[in-house]
């Protein structure tokens, strides 16, 4: 036996330290270069502290007199989120399967993935503005906006789940003489279903939040109300609406998190 005389160094190799230093330099440099563009004026917060206090005071006490109206619009928001997510799930199943490496050949996979990238890259607000023009003001524009953006996200999550499956059960199905669609229905879907459900619920949560925002460009729901009262400087009502949104979103997050735990 040869005895190794190499001592293990007690500090990382020099090259790694230098690389780390350069990495930090790049991050800090980029932030410094962005200071002007982002119009960073932290001192403004302190200079105008008096104004801020007055502004904040306007929010109290919250004015809940119109709560029935808010509640109705909040329900519309939830309905927008529900339909946007449901349609997205339906779209994400084929697109997700078609962008999975172990299902689709490269000439199908690549174009589908790029299309899904585009759906994801464009924010739901932008889609909402486009659909307000295309189908008119109102909740349906919001549904379509959430639908497209969420399809892009879920398709990617779904396909990652599919790529992580155990191939052996699928081969077991294939060996019986089943066709490719049957392999998917009996071999792939049962394996990914819990994850798919969990992802879908998670996206429903985020879509409830997004649905409040797409309303602000006229795509229906509580967002429209919020936009109108903010523009009218009704801050007491604004704070009432914001409290109702926070409560709703929190409740939905909690329930959905519970449900998701059931499926994993």
């Amino acid at each position, binding site marked *: 036996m040869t005895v190794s005389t190499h001592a293990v160094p007690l500090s990382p190799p020099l090259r790694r330290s230098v690389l780390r230093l350069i990495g930090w330099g790049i991050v800090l440099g980029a932030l410094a270069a962005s200071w002007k563009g982002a119009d960073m004026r932290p001192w403004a917060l302190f200079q105008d502290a008096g104004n801020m206090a007055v502004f904040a005071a306007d929010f109290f006490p919250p004015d809940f007199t119109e709560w029935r109206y808010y509640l109705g619009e909040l329900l519309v928001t939830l309905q927008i989120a529900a339909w946007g997510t449901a349609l997205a799930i339906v779209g994400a199943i084929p697109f997700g399967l078609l962008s999975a490496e172990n299902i689709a050949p490269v000439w199908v996979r690549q174009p589908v993935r790029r299309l899904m990238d585009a759906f994801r890259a464009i924010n739901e607000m932008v889609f909402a503005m486009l659909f307000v023009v295309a189908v008119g003001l109102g909740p349906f524009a919001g549904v379509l906006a959430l639908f497209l953006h969420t399809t892009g996200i879920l398709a990617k999550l779904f396909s990652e789940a599919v790529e992580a499956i155990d191939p*052996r*059960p699928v*081969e*077991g*199905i*294939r*060996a*019986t*003489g*089943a*066709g490719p*669609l*049957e392999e998917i*229905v*009996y*071999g792939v879907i*049962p*394996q990914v*279903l*819990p994850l798919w459900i969990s992802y879908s619920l998670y996206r429903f949560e985020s879509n409830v939040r997004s649905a409040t925002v797409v309303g602000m460009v006229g795509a229906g729901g509580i967002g429209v109300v919020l936009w109108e009262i903010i523009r009218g400087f009704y801050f007491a009502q604004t704070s009432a609406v914001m409290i109702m949104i926070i409560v709703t979103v929190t409740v939905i997050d909690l329930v959905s998190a519970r449900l998701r735990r059931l499926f994993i």
Partner: protein
Amino acid sequence: MADRTNEAAIRVMRLDKTFGDRKALDQVSIEVRPGEMVALIGASGSGKSTLLRHVAGLTRGDRGQGRVEVLGVCVQAEGRIAADIRRIRPQIGFVFQQFNLVGRLPVITNVLTGALGRMPAWRSLAGRFTLEERRAAVDALSRVGIAETAWQRASTLSGGQQQRAAIARTLVQGAGIILADEPIASLDPESSRRVMEILAAANAEDGTTVLVSLHQVDYAVRYCPRTVALRQGRVVYDGPSAALTPRFLRELYGAEASALIDGAAPRQAPVKPQMPLGPDRAAAVA
């Protein structure tokens, strides 16, 4: 069912398979007659799984002259899987070492997937199995002795039960040929015995042709009249299992032989219904 003309059930001709620069199969030729039960033995890495996967058309051989036929139908030739492979696959039941069941589905659904190859697509995709198909699945589960687990998730079964469910799937498939790839490698002796007996019963009662890979010779000797032995991708013996004495195995395998001999098989008298052995039994040993 398997047609009983003079057609071979399985015919492998001069099959080559190379992984990288390693030859996993080297000019393999074997022929299995309908109704035979044949063991495929060899040390780890000798090519047993590779050969069985080629017979089922799950893996392609090298370009060249290699050819595989099942019941007279081409499975693959010259490194290309037959375009109509799905027509012959329902005839080939495959039992995997790792069972390859879908763990989250109930056992009975796993068994019912054996019928997929014969069902119209609209029915299989909608999951609409007929009453007869379900009855066949329950019958198959009873035959392998685990009917009471029908509605359990497959993943909750023990290894031996899962392997029996996998065999039930090939029974529902109505396969004329069962290829079993080390079906007992991960099982305890008692489960191993049951699985081998179920395969032997399918062979004796239904006339199903069975080609089963094993890496313990004593199981081959007990359950299969004939053995094909592989070593480093080549067929080094094809004849009566009875001839595989420890001494002869050492001749075939040298130092590797010990892995094949020191099996954990229970040493009892064979319990399987005895199949008549081929006339070549006396002419043991090449």
